[in-house]
């Protein structure tokens, strides 16, 4: 990396961290942390889920940043469209995902044709599912994240002509606090579980808690963004 890009890169990363620790994406951050923590029986699984979640966020900002810097999209239109519609769509979506995680809505796979492979895929989807989760959560802009991304990061990317590096670093920055927090909780819970010899039980409850958290966050987002309930 050239010296000229060092300061903008650090700024982009910091803007991402600032976005993540601001209060407005708290609900989606809690949902993301619970999703990453649920595979706590294997530290590798927690790490992989966290990395893929961060990668998902990075991909969204990379694509969005590149399109905006290349002037293929209008900043005001995209910014306001995402703020108005994404948060509204996210509520019902999280509710459905929560119901699937709790097996209230069962996903049934045919066992006659490649059943074992499908089952294996479904099991691993827990890890890979964090990639689209990160991508979708990154699109749910709130006023603070919109101000930082569209008002600070994109002008910085335009100034430096960096349509890939800076949006990517911003994406990593937005995922970093969630990743670190989730890994610490996951490893801590694993340590407690091992010490009490109840790891399997704790993990079972963590998985259920993830479903419940997704449903609660879904209800919260629907009430606030669709039904206009004041917070």
């Amino acid at each position, binding site marked *: 990396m050239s010296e000229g890009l060092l300061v903008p890169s650090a700024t982009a990363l910091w803007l991402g961290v600032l976005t993540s620790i601001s209060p407005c994406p708290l609900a989606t951050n809690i949902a993301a942390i619970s999703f990453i923590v649920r595979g706590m029986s294997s530290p590798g699984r927690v790490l992989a889920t966290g990395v893929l979640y961060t990668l998902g966020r990075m991909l969204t900002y990379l694509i969005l940043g590149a399109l905006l810097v290349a002037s293929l999209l209008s900043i005001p239109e995209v910014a306001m469209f995402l*703020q108005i519609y994404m948060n509204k769509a996210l509520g*019902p979506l999280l509710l459905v995902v929560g119901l699937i995680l709790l097996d209230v809505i069962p996903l049934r796979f045919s066992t006659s044709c490649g059943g074992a492979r499908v089952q294996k895929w479904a099991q691993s989807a827990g890890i890979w599912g964090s990639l689209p989760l990160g991508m979708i959560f990154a699109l749910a802009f709130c006023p603070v994240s919109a101000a930082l991304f569209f008002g600070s990061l994109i002008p910085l990317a335009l100034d430096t002509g960096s349509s890939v590096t800076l949006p990517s670093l911003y994406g990593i920055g937005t995922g970093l606090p969630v990743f670190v927090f989730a890994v610490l909780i996951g490893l801590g819970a694993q340590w407690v579980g091992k010490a009490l010899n109840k790891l399997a039980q704790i993990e079972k409850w963590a998985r259920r808690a993830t479903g419940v958290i997704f449903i609660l966050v879904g*209800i919260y987002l629907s009430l606030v963004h669709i039904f206009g309930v004041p917070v």
Partner: protein
Amino acid sequence: MKAKSILRTLLLVFVVVSGVSLVIKDVRERSQSGTVSEGSTVMAATAPLQTAEGNPAPTKKPPKVIAYYFHTTFRCTTCRTIEAFSREAIEQAFGDALKNGKLEWRLVNVEERANRHFIQDYRLFTKSLILVKMKDGKQAEWKNLPRVWELVRRKDAFLRYVQDEVRAYLEAS
């Protein structure tokens, strides 16, 4: 088992009601987009006034400044603080200008279809405080005050920033 199925039904009904209400609200807003809202005032003011004969009327309106706070239907805590501080800054320092019409404070919801044009007009990407200078009934210039986001946790600096910017616009008009 029964409780689980009741809960499942309730949650699924909630999902369906949320989806349907989302669509209904959108359709209703589209059908109401032709109605005049508070936001259409700038459009009206920018267009030259016409006499009955169709000739432009002599526009001798006194200059004024409009301070717009643009928001969406969802009002986050920080956004409410920015709105309250902006209003306080203006009312505290420019009470006379507000009374004699040299300064106006307007709240506009850009989520309402009739106000969507403001998004492009003022290049809005989040909740924003915009100052508009009107001369002879026309929009002469406008300015975004982006530092409201940076100063929202330092009330004194926030009030000073907004008051300085409004004062500069009023003095130049």
